[in-house]
């Protein structure tokens, strides 16, 4: 074991081996998946295949939601929230109603930065936009981000009140003001209101956009 070339070759090959086996083969095998069409059909052998048509899913990133993703990244949300659903028999992700199906590699192909996450101090968010939708969902997210205790008493999520502005009501209340019930212990002084900043709006739009509501050939949503 005194021979430098020998030692060096060994050192080189061991890492080359895992680099090829893990990184390169991943890239070759599922580094070039394509979008799926909206409709899928049975090929007769019980397999679903894509039919001709425009590629639809997963949806492309963009707009305000993409700006919101940047806020999600900047705030380090990933360190407490995962974005991956485990299959039926492996953990209780499906039983918790976190999503309609397990997530698969193709679900992430449109994302420039993949935020799988490996910690669930808080719940999984892969399909949070499917769980909390529309204006009710938007309202819930704003209250929860402003102060998690309002919606989830006892939560250890940090408040993101710095993404909101406390201001005096001038004339009519703002339309986008957050609705904190007047009898809540977190109610504001009369005459004041909380409005989201642009970043808070974007972040909530991003959360609303996180949805698994489409089937993929390898991962159909079963009714």
């Amino acid at each position, binding site marked *: 074991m005194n021979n430098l070339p020998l030692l060096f070759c060994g050192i080189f090959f061991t890492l080359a081996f895992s680099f090829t086996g893990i990184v390169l083969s991943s890239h070759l095998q*599922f580094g070039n998946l394509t979008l799926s069409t909206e409709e899928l059909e049975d090929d007769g052998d019980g397999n679903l295949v894509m039919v001709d048509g425009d590629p639809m899913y997963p949806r492309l990133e963009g707009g305000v939601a993409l700006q919101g993703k940047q806020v999600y990244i900047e705030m380090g949300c990933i360190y407490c929230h995962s974005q991956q659903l485990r299959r039926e028999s492996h953990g209780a992700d499906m039983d918790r109603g976190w999503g309609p199906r397990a997530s698969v590699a193709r679900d992430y192909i449109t994302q420039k930065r993949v935020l799988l996450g490996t910690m669930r101090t808080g719940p999984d968010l892969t399909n949070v936009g499917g769980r909390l939708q529309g204006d009710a969902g938007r309202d819930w997210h704003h209250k929860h981000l402003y102060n998690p205790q309002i919606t989830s008493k006892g939560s250890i999520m940090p408040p993101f009140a710095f993404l909101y502005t406390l201001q005096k009501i001038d004339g009519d209340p703002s339309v986008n003001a957050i609705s904190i019930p007047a009898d809540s212990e977190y109610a504001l002084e009369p005459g004041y209101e909380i409005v989201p900043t642009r970043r808070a709006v974007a972040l909530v739009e991003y959360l609303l956009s996180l949805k698994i509501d489409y089937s993929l050939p*390898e991962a159909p949503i079963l009714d």
Partner: protein
Amino acid sequence: MPVENYIDLLPVILLGIVFFGSAVAMIFWSARRGQLRDFDDQAKVIFTHEEPEGEISDHFPDK
């Protein structure tokens, strides 16, 4: 539809076999050159006349 296409992995698998073969060849080569002999002498190269074998070189003061 199976997504995982193993044909794509063929070059990688071949490369792996080549790596493995060269590793085995290297072991034979080094054994032939006597690299794998007299191991226990090598374990003593850390001792010198300044810090020789058989002497403890670090301890708390009162022990």
